[in-house]
Each structure stands twice: as structure tokens, then as C-alpha cells.
């Protein structure tokens, strides 16, 4: 009981910090709202789907960024997909960086793309880690 309360508190604080730090936006809340008895792990399910798909895209973009010259069209296309997926789970920071990356693509700014991509990767990893921890606690709560 007490442990449960503790967990709940922990969970709440983890969740809150994700929002406070700008990692997540209200889209995440909408996902939580969609969760119901019929789909009790809906949010986790969606987040998992997202990470599976987005990891693949990250790799693809990385490889594309190694090419020379850069194919901005392709890069933009990949990033568009990535952005769409990130938006769906409410990944706020990552979404902003995706937009930035696309703008650089449009401008043909390879440097800008590379730089932005590094930031994006970092924030993407952070969010992923935090969400995984969050769901772990959620699971513990049963």
C-alpha cells in the first residue's frame, strides 16, 4: 500500500517533469485519455511502436547524412516521417528539432542539418530513456 503510494508519487513526478522539461506536450495527454479498460496499456503500446519505427528512421537519416553530397530531398522526406511519428506521441522537443532540420534541408544547409540532427538525437535518447523508466514504474504499480 505504502509502496504503491510511493510508486504513484514517483510516477506522477516523473510524468510531470517530462512535461515541465518540455519533452512532452498535450498530445501525450490525449493518448493517455484514449487509454481505457479495453486498452489498458495503450500509451505504452503506442510509444513502443513509435520507438521501433523511429529508431529505424534515425539510422536511415544518419546514413544519409554521411553521404556526400547531401540529398536534401531525401533527408527532408525521412525527417518528415520522423516528425510525424514524434508528433503522434507528443515528443515536443524532438518535434521542434525535426522542424528545424527540415528547414535546413529546404535551405540546403548541410551544416545546419548535421548540427540539428545531433541535438535531435540527444533529445530523442533522453525522452526514450525517461519514458522507459516511466513505464517501468507504471508496470510495477500493476
Amino acid at each position, binding site marked *: 500500500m505504502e509502496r504503491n503510494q510511493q510508486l504513484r508519487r514517483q510516477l506522477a513526478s516523473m510524468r510531470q517533469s517530462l512535461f515541465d522539461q518540455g519533452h512532452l506536450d498535450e498530445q501525450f495527454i490525449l493518448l493517455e485519455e484514449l487509454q481505457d479498460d479495453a*486498452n489498458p496499456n495503450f500509451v505504452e503500446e*503506442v510509444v513502443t511502436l513509435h520507438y521501433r519505427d523511429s529508431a529505424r528512421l534515425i539510422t536511415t537519416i544518419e546514413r544519409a547524412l554521411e553521404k556526400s553530397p547531401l540529398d536534401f530531398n531525401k533527408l527532408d522526406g525521412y525527417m518528415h516521417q520522423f516528425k510525424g*511519428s514524434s508528433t*503522434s506521441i507528443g515528443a515536443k522537443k524532438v518535434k521542434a528539432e525535426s522542424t528545424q532540420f527540415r528547414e535546413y534541408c529546404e535551405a540546403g544547409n548541410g551544416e545546419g542539418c548535421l548540427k540539428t540532427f545531433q541535438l535531435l538525437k540527444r533529445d530523442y535518447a533522453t525522452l526514450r530513456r525517461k519514458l522507459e523508466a516511466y513505464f517501468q514504474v507504471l508496470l510495477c504499480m500493476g
Partner: protein
Amino acid sequence: MSTASSSVTVSDQFPAGLRVLVVDDDPTCLRILEKMLGTCLYEVTKCNRAEIALDMLRTNKNGYDIVISDVHMPDMDGFKLLEQVGLEMDLPVIMMSADDSKQVVMKGVTHGACDYLIKPVRIEALKNIWQHVVRKRKNEWKDLEQSGSVEEGDRQPKPSEEADYSSSANEGNWRTSKRRKDEEEEIEERDDTSTLKKPRVVWSVELHQQFVSAVNQLGIDKAVPKKILELMNVPGLTRENVASHLQKYRLYLRRLSGVSPHQGNSFISSHSQEPPYGSLSSLSGLDFQTLAATGQIPAQSLATLQAAGLARSAAKPGLPMPLVDQRNIFSFDNQKLRFGEGQPQHMSSGKQMNLLHGIPTTMDSKQLVNLHHSAQSLGSLNMQASAHGNPSGQSSPLLMQMAQPQSRGQILTETSGGQVPRLPTSVGHPILSNGAAGAMLAINGIGENSRGTGYNSVSQTSSVLNFPLNHSAELPGNSFPLGSTPGISAGMSTLTTKGGFQEEINSDIKGSGGFMPSYDIFNDLQQHKPHNWELQNVGFAFDASQHSNSLQASVDVTPSVLVNQGYSSSQRNVQNSNVSAMGKPIFSVGEGSEHGIALNVGQHLNSLLVDNSTRVKSERVTDTSCQPTLLPQHFGQEDLMSAILKQQQDGLGPAENDFEFDGYSLDNIPV
């Protein structure tokens, strides 16, 4: 997913059960959408590949009501999918993307998307997507009406001769009246129907193929209607038919090659835009007018019809629900428009058939009639019918409405939504002007209702419907047994239902390359079993009883007949589509072939009517005249109309072929 089809019980829960196909290569989005749509109580099928989605749509033609697709997909561009769906299945398609730039959204519009959602999609946005289904059907209905009813009732009553289709004078009047209506309702398109008021020619696949080969033979530059006509060597086809068809074809080709004609939609769209068939638009306008004049069609029926039209979901742009009481469309409780098909049977259950799958349409027989009318270019008949002064005048306004929108030639296959030709709006026009008030009502009802929905069960206006069908059919004017309307009402409902089916038909239509879709539809329609028709009749009869609008009884019956024809399930839709798409009354083409339906239908209808006169017995409708023969499947609406007309004729009098309208003072129909 939903295979529902048969249950017609959707209406009460509509929009719950709406069958949505969602296509997105992003698994995250797909899952979220699936969940959201499920929360909206829709039946969701998800798909991550456009090609697979197309296969699913093709194999399960009437299995879906609406498609939601992402724009950027690896295997196929979302817009291309949009076009294909519009052409082949004529379902409403919603595009979505994280990209909200104006160009992309515009592209969605030009390709015929009925909506564009920006990702992340909110559930609130999804809650209302059913409106697109309803709207499309309504438009289809309208188209059908318009195309079907070449003559509006208020025009001078056309003598029975079938041949007398092209009465420019009539058309002129009709056009005017229709125009008014159209303007009121802002029905977009089709103006040219008025010029040609000939019986609608149904451009079946074969016919179209003949046309295309003739054009190719001559060379697209040298292809002039006269030469094409000679090459085609189709008896009964006029130069004008070919000319208007050629015009559409050209637009279509232009669109294919990247230049969009005014609409940028598929060929069909172009068609619908300006109803080449003349009848479409004119019909709708007229029909409604006449119908309105007769005042018979209860607003409800009109609404139903509209709903029916909606069911068709013809991508008719701008087909606003005609005057018809739009609210009727939503009064689905009585009629359940089934989103899918299989309604006909229901009709017999005495309830208005909800043609629209899942969309409850309160089409009463009138609507059906209207639908029919539009579908068929009954020619003067239609007009007459409506002209014949419906006593009630109330429905007139409804009728008016109906007439207009429908004539979209688009019905068939518009890119975006490919509206399958819905029953020509002619349904609206009161063909039977004869004292068959019921008939008028039916027509009115149909006209009104059908306008929007296309197949609302027009219970009352069944009579109206008949008219168009017969165009020449002379609906036995006087003796139109209105009393039996009950049956008609039933029929009307069927009509509405048909509207619903239209959608389905669309799916059947696989445009060969896009252009054909509309034609295919017709073919499909033709192939549809007639029995649908019968079923509808039955239902029709029931509805009629429900409506028992006084006169309508007899009239009502017919509509069902008509409806059945057109709508009974996808097949019917096909029919409808034919009707509407072509905008031309089936009669014209059919003349020779089964399409003679108009006449037949009329007769049939009459017989139905007759039966109805005693009471609306749906059964009678079916067994009697409703035979499928009346309405070749492809006619869909036209069939209905003819059936109705026939019935009326029978009801009215006797002879089955005694379609002379003398009894009907169609011209008197106040528009």
C-alpha cells in the same frame, strides 16, 4: 472489417458503425487513429500500404464508407490513392498529413479530397467525418435525380412518346426552374443539362468503349461528335449525346494529363459538374420544383432523398442539400439508410429503407421518386408529373430542392468521391402530373429528398419517380392510384436506400483508367441483379404505407420500385451511379435495351402502383412489376424511376404501357 452490409439497422446508431478504412505507413499514427476511430464507435480497418488498401477496397466493394489516408506514403502517393478511390469506388476520402502548407492542402482539394486533417489528428476531428459520407450520398442522390429527370414536372407534359425527349422548350423551362433552384441551393454544376433535355443516355461501359475507340480512330483532335456518332453507329444515340459526352471526356483527359479542368476531379467529376446529360442538373432543379409544387413531398422525404444522395457520397462538389429539408436527412430514424447495401430487404420490412448505409435517411417514397426522376430523363414525363399539381404544395419546396443538386453527372466517379451517379435528381420532378397527387408527391418527395441524399426513401414521391422513368411512359395520369401510396412510400424509401447504394456502386466501378469509372458503374449496375429492385419494392411498399400520404400511396410504391432498382445494395448503387453519372436518363440510352426501363419502369411502377392502390403492399411491388427487368441493374435510379413510373401507370391505369400522360397535366405542375 465491416461487412455489414446487410443490416439496415444503422440508422439509429448512425454514425456509429461507420466503416472507415485508414491508410498510413506510420504505425504509430495508424494505431492511434485506430483507437480514436474506435472511440468514435466506428468500425475501423487499418492498412499501412496504399496498394493493399486499394485491394481491400476493390475486393470488398461496399465494405467501407469512408477512407482516411496519409499524404506521404512510400509505396504510393496519397493523392494518387485519393484519385483511385474516387474513381473506382467513389467513396469520400479524407487526407491527412503533418504538412499543413497551403500547397498540399490545395492539392488535396483539387484531387477531390473531401477533407484534409492536419496531424496530429484530434479525436474531435474524427468524430465528424460521417458528414462526408452523408454529404456524398446526398449529392449522389441529387445527381441521380438530375440526370434522371430530364423533364421536370412543371414543364409541359410530354406526350408519351418516348422519342420526344429533346424538347428544347421543355428544357428551357426546366432549366429555368431548375436554375432557380440550383441557385438557391447552390447546386453547383451542371448547367448544361438544361439545354439538352433529352432522355438521359446511359453511358454504359460498352457504349463508352465504343465511344473511346471511335475517338481514337478519328484522332482526338479530329474527333467531332458527328463523326463519332457515325462510327459508333449506335441506334438512338444522338449527336448531342455524343457531344456532351465528348466534352466530358476531353475534360477528363485534360485532367489526366495534369491540367485540371475546372474541377480537377476525375472525369466523372467533370461530368457532374456540368451535367452533360443535361438532365441531371435540370432535373434536380425541376424536379424539386415540380415536386415542390405538388407540395406533396414532405420535407421529410426530401431530406431522405438527400440523405440518399449523401449515401452516394458522390463527390459532388457543392451539392448542398437542396432545399430539402436537410434536417430530414438526419432524421434517420425512420429510414435507415444503410451504408452498405442490402437494404432492399429491409425495405420490405416496412421501414424505410435506409439506403445509405448507416445513414439513416428519412427518405420516403417521395424521395425515391425524386431520385428516380432525376435519374431518368423521363423527359416530359417527369415534368409532367410534377406539374400535375400536387395538391399539397408543401412538398414543392422540397422538390425544388431536390431537383437541383442532383444532376451531377459526377455521380459516378469523381475522383475524390466519385459520386456515382445518383439517381438523377429528376426524381424530384414530378413526372406524373396527373391527378395522381400521390405520384406527385412521390416525385416531390423524392425530388426533395433525393436531392441531397440521393436515395432517401421517398415515400411519397414515389409517384414522382415514376415519372421520370417513364418519361414517355405515360404515367397514367389520372388514374394514378394514389391511394395506394403506401406502397410507394415504401418504395421511396427504397429509393433513398438506393442512394446509399450508390456508394457501393462506386466501388464497383473500376474505372479503366479513370475515365471509365463512371461507365463501369453503369455496367455494374446493369449487372446488378434486378432482384434488388424487387426487394426494394417490397420495402417500398412498406414505406408507402408508412407514409401514406394520401395520394402517394400509389406513387409511393413506385418509388420503392425505383429505389430498389437503383439501390438495392451495391448493385443498386451501380445503377444509381449510372443514372446519376450519366445524368442522362436511362431511357434515352436504354431505349433499345433494357433500359427501356423507363418505360418499363413506368409500367412496372404502375403495376406496382396499382397494387399499391389497394394498399401499399410491398410485396406486390416486388412481385409485380418490380421485376428486375424493369430496371436493368445499371440503371439504378432510373430503374427505380421507371419502375415507379410504371407502377404509377399501372396504378393509374391500366395499361401497362399506357403511359400517356394525358391524365397528368404535367404542365400544370406549378413549379
